């Protein structure tokens, strides 16, 4: 954890979000420092995706306040990159991988300005960083699941952001992709960027991240991995019945190793 500045990357207080008259996130408060790889962990339906969308101002909030890098999201959109779940777009859309990744610089350009040769070069650099250079001028329709995720990540790299929000980047990807993503995260963190990742798999979270936020409707706990992943926190997040189950799975994993 280098370059931790005094301003926190994310500061949320008393956030409540309702959707169709159902409260999805209630009275959530959390602070995440700069320069960490933070995993947002919780069971299905805990409101993880809703929470991250609200952070980016993509969903209205019912109450509370959100500060990213000490500022309102509206003022610092160019410092924030968002990678949605890859199922959120139509991969049969007539675009090349290059065209799609180029969209990452549209935020910096603003309305009506066109990308130029500098931006094109940045696209090739971003594609090289995720190992997709050979696919640059192919249709996005030919990409496999893992390659789709890497293309999304390349588009986020084009944003040259300070904070990266990612929604389930490891869901259904191959081992090559997983390794590329993790290496990239570490590299970004070492450059002082903050990475906040919605993640469903509790067991890999301790190896992927150095900071954890447990979420189930509200923030159960947040902090360094060892402080947060305790039996009592996990039972508050996943329910008491879950603990023996975790224990079983964990032991099976140990046996396999």
């Amino acid at each position, binding site marked *: 954890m280098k370059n931790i500045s005094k301003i926190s990357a994310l500061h949320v207080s008393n956030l409540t979000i309702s959707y169709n008259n159902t409260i999805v996130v209630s009275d959530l408060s959390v602070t995440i420092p700069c320069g960490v790889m933070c995993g947002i962990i919780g069971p299905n339906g805990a409101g993880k995706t809703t929470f991250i969308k609200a952070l980016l101002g993509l969903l209205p909030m019912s109450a509370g306040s959100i500060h990213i890098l000490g500022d309102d999201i509206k003022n610092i959109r160019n410092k924030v990159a*968002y990678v949605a779940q890859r199922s*959120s*777009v*139509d991969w049969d859309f007539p*675009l090349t991988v290059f065209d799609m990744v180029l*969209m990452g610089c549209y935020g910096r350009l603003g309305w*009506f300005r066109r990308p130029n040769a500098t931006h094109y070069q940045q696209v090739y650099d971003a594609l090289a960083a995720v190992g997709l250079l050979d696919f640059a001028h192919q*249709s996005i329709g030919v990409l496999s699941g893992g390659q789709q995720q890497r293309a999304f990540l390349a588009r986020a790299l084009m*944003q040259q952001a300070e904070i990266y929000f990612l929604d389930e980047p490891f869901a259904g990807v191959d081992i090559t992709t997983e390794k590329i993503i993790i290496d990239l995260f570490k590299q970004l963190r070492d450059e002082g960027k903050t990475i906040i990742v919605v993640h469903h798999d509790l067991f890999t979270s301790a190896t992927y991240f150095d900071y954890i936020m447990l979420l189930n409707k509200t923030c159960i706990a947040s902090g360094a991995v060892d402080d947060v992943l305790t039996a009592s926190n996990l039972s508050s997040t996943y329910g008491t019945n879950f603990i023996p189950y975790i224990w079983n799975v964990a032991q099976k994993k140990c046996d396999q190793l």
Partner: protein
Amino acid sequence: MMSTIFCIDYTLLIVLQGALLLGITSGMLGCFALLRQQSLLGDAISHAALPGIVLMFLCTHSKNPWVLLIGGACAGVIGVISMQFVCTHTTLKKDAVLGIILSVFFGFGLVLMTVAQKVPTSNQAILNKFLFGNVATLLEQDIRAIAVLSLLIVITLFVCWKECVMYVFDPLFAHSLGFKPRIIETVLTILLILAIIIGLQTVGVILMSTMLIAPAAAARQWITRFGSMVLCAALFGGCATTLGVYASSVIDHMPTGPAIVVVASCIVFISLLCAPQRNVAS
């Protein structure tokens, strides 16, 4: 003798120009509608235009098509707004809402047409051409108006190109970059309404949606980049309208709209069968 032939050719030339512009603009905008999975939005808007056209006639008794089309455009806008209202305030699915708006507006328009028949003037004949389209009545000033509207559409698309493509592909991402989805959505919808307005005299309210869907669907079969797809759809649209208009001018009593639709369907049919990679067999 020579002058009559010249006269026919001149009228046909005028009409073909109008048809070509219609084919190009509706082909281009159809790509956006198709990829937003909103192909039927154009159908609903064009049907919704009918009561506006007839109401405008009842108010003004005008036989100037552009006066009536202003009414049509307003009704189209009201149609879109009511669709959004029903979508957000009820649990009805989008396809149901489209179906309801389309038939309610169109039915209302037909009722108004019956009323219009009883108006003591001979101008109501113009209303019939909006149903199936009649290109033969296009005049030089109509072509000028169509050209201005087409130019407006093409320039707007060119200026907002990157925003529109990004929005159609990934609206959530566009929003996260700070591009307000509602602004881009509104621009695209206004352009769609303008393209429909251009098409109503030529193709008519009932078949207008074909002009939006068919060229775009055919182009998608052949092309894997969005920019090229838009150009290809413009080409297909232009071919369909010019060939259709030509057929309707040489065959007696052939209404223009259906003739264009038949040509457009042939293009789609061939594309579905023959396009490499995406044909029916693969």
